[in-house]
């Protein structure tokens, strides 16, 4: 896989115009992109195809309803990451991390290496949302405890954070009275989920998937709005950057084919995740596709030794046993052109977990 600097070098070899420090304000229904920067002022571009790649943002403290004051020292893990890795500042010395997403785990290691004491990582769910590799190499390596089914119930301190109260939660994720514990700290990092950044998509009136928070797309990552494609974390939150690269190539190819008038129309059918499969991307598949389609999905809980079953109209298309399935790790199944050939406009592809 290529790294970011190699991608930049590739773009620089072409005659593609690149506007940096430029913000897109609006995408209109007829694909006119309005942007602004301090050099060119207001820019309007009539596009044939648009690829949305706005990424996602972190869920902030406001989304959590943690009681207590509002002192300095409470921030998202990504903010802390920017302070340490780009600005060269240390945001604190005694750290508690809420949420065990990958950014939170990586920041636990990063802060420890830079000399801070990471006291505990609290995770609301009974399993971690991060990759196993990160739990081992970012927490276990440094003896940082991971408390599952545990959350921060209040913050203390006026000017600067002085401590937090954590508590165990029950199966309804409500704090259990009597399990509160005070932890002395000056920094609370939040790694509590990512939200696809779809303000522009909503402006165009693009249909969003309520589970992924990203647009509903077909196998070329085209949204339900003609000529507008989406890829990366704006479409679904990824754990591995390699999947983002793969998805961007699919969307790029789709946009190019659209511009050159290739592969238009077709018969689209829906994909649906059931029995433990939270969502599937793409949500729509053209049954005339001749290349085969990879369906990406996430499960809702941890499964061991369960089967991933793909069905269409009551027929099992594939069934594969997996040693482990976890919400933090994206999975995929392949739909071959042969499978698609037997489908019609009323078909629906379902993916489910069978224990």
């Amino acid at each position: 896989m290529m790294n970011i600097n190699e991608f930049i070098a590739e773009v620089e070899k072409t005659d593609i115009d690149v506007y940096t420090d430029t913000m897109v304000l609006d995408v209109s229904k007829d694909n006119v992109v309005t942007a602004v920067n301090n050099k060119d002022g207001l820019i309007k571009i009539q596009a044939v195809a648009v690829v949305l790649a706005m990424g996602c943002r972190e869920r902030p403290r406001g989304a959590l309803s943690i009681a207590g004051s509002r002192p300095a020292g409470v921030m998202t893990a990504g903010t802390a990451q920017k302070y340490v890795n780009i600005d060269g500042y240390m945001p604190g010395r005694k750290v508690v991390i809420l949420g065990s997403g990958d950014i939170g785990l990586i920041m636990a290691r990063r802060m420890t290496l830079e000399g801070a004491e990471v006291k505990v990582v609290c995770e609301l769910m009974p399993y971690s949302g991060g990759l196993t590799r990160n739990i081992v190499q970012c927490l276990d390596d440094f003896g940082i405890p991971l408390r599952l089914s545990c959350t921060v119930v209040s913050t203390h301190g006026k000017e600067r954070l002085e401590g937090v109260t954590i508590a165990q939660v029950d199966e309804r994720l409500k704090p259990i009275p009597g399990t509160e514990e005070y932890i002395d700290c000056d920094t609370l990092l939040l790694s509590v989920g990512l939200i696809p950044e779809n303000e522009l998509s909503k402006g165009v009136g693009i249909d969003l998937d309520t589970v992924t928070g990203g647009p509903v797309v077909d196998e070329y990552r085209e949204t339900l709005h003609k000529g507008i494609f989406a890829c990366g974390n704006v479409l679904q939150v990824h754990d591995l950057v390699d999947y983002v690269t793969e998805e961007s190539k699919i969307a790029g190819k789709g946009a190019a084919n659209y511009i050159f008038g290739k592969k238009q129309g077709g018969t689209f059918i829906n994909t649906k995740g059931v029995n433990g499969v939270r969502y599937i991307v793409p949500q729509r598949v053209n049954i005339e596709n001749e290349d085969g389609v990879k369906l990406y999905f996430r499960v809702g809980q941890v499964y061991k030794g369960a089967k991933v079953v793909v069905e269409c109209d009551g027929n099992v298309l594939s069934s594969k046993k997996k040693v482990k399935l976890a919400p933090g790790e994206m999975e995929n199944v392949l739909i071959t052109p042969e499978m698609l050939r037997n489908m019609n406009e009323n078909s629906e592809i379902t993916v489910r977990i069978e224990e």
Partner: protein
Amino acid sequence: MKKSLICVSCPLGCPIEVEIDNGEILSVTGNTCKRGDAYARDELTNPVRSLTTTVKLVNGSLPVVPVKSSKPVPKDKMFECMKIINQASIEAPVKIGDVVVKDILSTGADIIVTNNDIGK
């Protein structure tokens, strides 16, 4: 003596149990593939980690530049490596692959720059 660890060779994360006697590995169980066996043996005899951090950048467009170890370093030397890296600095312009610390702590690994900075 028994030691348990989680394999990180792939996303499966097999729970592995290793039986050791006087530093000698008697058995490795719980792994589903050969990579798990190799991981467990390496992990208990010579655990290594890639080290990623930042180093002070003089006259750069940013105050720090990201660096990594050119190959994994022994796990128990990570903090010692950090001490040396925190004392070090490099002057812009820098490009990917520039060496900041050569053969850190005689581990055979160099600390190399992982981003370009053309300077102020």
